[in-house]
């Protein structure tokens, strides 16, 4: 492979990893606060359709992206009301949210099938974007790709260094203790859930405006579920999440490239199992290897909190 070919492959990997990264990063923060929202797929697809509808109505990609985030957050708000205020079961509510989101998005999107939308503008730095290999790789993306990387840095800093981040982690590790020293557990969790929804919405917006700039029903095609797995895969750490998203995107893309290059004699079905095999393998290594005990799941994950007044 030439340099050019390598950079083309890497470009594809980056675009495959970005929606996963957005959605998984949002979910990571949600889970760190002790809430398990299985509705990522639903929030993503509602974000995708909202972004597409607004971008095609106004002609503005940035408004579309904003609409995607708002729509994802709106769906997350429903989840919040049900699980945080009304203390409903988080697993069941999350699953319902996914199914609801898929249905709602088809309803909203019915009028947008078969309409193209101009893709998000790519960053183009004169002179630099045209450099071989490095140019398109580092300077040839749309703003969302850079935003996803910035978001990883921001979330990592927030969780580790900021006071609000520490409160959020405390709420996720021991809601009762946090409550008894005077933190508003429900309010913290609401913010986390809304953030998670907005991030899933951004992931969806990336899908419908940049990855494949079109609206098609069910276009998230299970990426929300992969994002959920990635959070565990990364053992709730933002930097590992970044690596995981790119690894996952990379394995998916690599199998398509090896297929078209002749397949190396491996059946296509085996190739498409690879990303999932990799997930299982890494999970097993983390859980059973010398790093045992560092799996690091928030202690209150999935448990409803009822303040005893």
């Amino acid at each position, binding site marked *: 492979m030439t340099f050019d*070919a390598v950079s*083309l*492959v890497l470009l*594809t990997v980056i675009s*495959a990893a970005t*929606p996963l990264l957005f959605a998984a990063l949002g979910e990571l923060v949600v889970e760190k606060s002790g809430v398990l929202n299985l509705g990522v797929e639903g929030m993503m697809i509602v974000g995708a359709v909202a972004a597409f509808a607004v971008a095609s109505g106004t002609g503005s990609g940035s408004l579309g992206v904003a609409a995607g985030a708002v729509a994802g957050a709106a769906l997350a708000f429903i989840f919040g009301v049900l699980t945080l205020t009304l203390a409903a079961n988080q697993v069941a509510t999350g699953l319902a949210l996914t199914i609801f989101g898929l249905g709602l998005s*088809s309803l909203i*999107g*019915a009028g947008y*099938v*078969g*309409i*193209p939308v101009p*893709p998000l503008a790519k960053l183009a730095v004169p002179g630099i974007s045209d450099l071989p290999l490095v140019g398109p790789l580092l300077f040839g993306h749309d703003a969302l790709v850079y935003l996803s990387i910035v978001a990883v840095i921001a979330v990592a800093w927030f969780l580790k260094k900021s006071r609000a981040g520490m409160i959020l982690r405390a709420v996720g590790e021991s809601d009762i203790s946090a409550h008894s020293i005077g933190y508003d557990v429900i309010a913290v969790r609401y913010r986390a859930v809304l953030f998670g929804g907005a991030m899933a919405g951004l992931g969806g917006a990336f*899908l419908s405006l940049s*990855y*494949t*700039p*079109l609206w*098609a*029903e*069910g*276009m998230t*095609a299970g*990426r929300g579920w992969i994002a959920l797995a990635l959070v565990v895969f990364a053992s709730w750490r933002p930097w590992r999440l970044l690596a995981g998203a790119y690894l996952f995107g990379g394995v*998916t*893309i690599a199998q*398509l*490239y090896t*297929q*078209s*290059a*002749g*397949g190396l004699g491996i059946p*296509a*079905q085996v190739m*498409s199992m690879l990303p999932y095999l990799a997930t299982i393998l890494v999970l097993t290594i983390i859980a059973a290897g010398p790093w045992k005990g560092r799996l690091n799941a928030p202690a209150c994950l999935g448990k409803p909190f009822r303040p005893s007044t």
Partner: protein
Amino acid sequence: MFKDLSRRRFLAGSTAAAGALALGGRTALGADPLKVGFVYVGPVGDFGWTHGHDLGRKAIEKEFGDKVKTTFVENVAEGPDAERVIRQLASSGNKLIFTTSFGFMNQTVKVAKQFPDVMFEHATGFKTAKNLSVYNARFYEGRAVIGTIAGHMTKTGKFGYIASFPIPEVVMGINAFILAARKVRPDAEIKVVWVNSWYDPGKEADATKALIDQGCDVITQHTDSPAPIQTAGSRGVLCFGQASDMTTFAPEQHATAILDVWGPYYVERVKAVLDGTWQTSNVWQGFKEGMVEMAPYNKNLPGEVVEAAESVRKGIIAGTLHPFTGPINDQSGAEKIPAGQTIPDGDLLGMDWYVEGVSA
């Protein structure tokens, strides 16, 4: 058959009691609309395969108005789940049920056995029964047309094919495409990428990128979303729509599309049920009957290329050209079909080997 059945019930009623007679009479008059059910593998908004079937369903509604009532269930997974959906449709009073994907075959056969007075129509399968018909379109005829265009337009001689699952239908399409292309460009080859899904826009787009990166300058697909068209369009690569006219996604590069036209067949079958003349059948129709059509050719295609494509289409309609006419070599280069012979329909429907020029 439907009418006979009602009449039998009518007669049985008349011998029993006057009240039953009146009831039976009302059924026989058909005051209730005929309920027609559809099982779709994808969403109606896929702009491809399922979209095409749903247009057929709408054609029924338009033709028969309130004499029929149609229902559809979309996004039904191929496999055991489908059986539940089909049975549900049958037991809720649908008298004619269309199951529109190959993978619904065994489930349809099973439910058809349990509901002998419900009529079933299964698309692209090969198992029939007294109350189960199969119908299919000769998409390979369309593939021969686009293969001809591809052969004329390619510079690199490499084509990219985004494929779903290695079933005969898909294998046949790949073969028809490359056979037609190699008539124009004898050294042409085709690279196949299996995405193992009928519908995953993101993955289809990635596969398209992979193929273009490896030198393919024509992209065609046997998956249902317009994502490959859009990706090919954005890279300036020639492509062909699948099941619907997808020009809007690549106005300059979308050469043409193979269109599935199910409406006339659906209308005909519903009419047969209403008239009581429905019988099990096994049809495989193409350009000639109008079940397969080509979308308008792109204005960017040179006139002589359009002419060559049209002559293939017209030859197929006239019966002077069969896309699977020998000599045909298999992948290893050995002759499989001798010169002058064509592959019979039965063998095509079970096709499990690739012709020369395919790397899959």
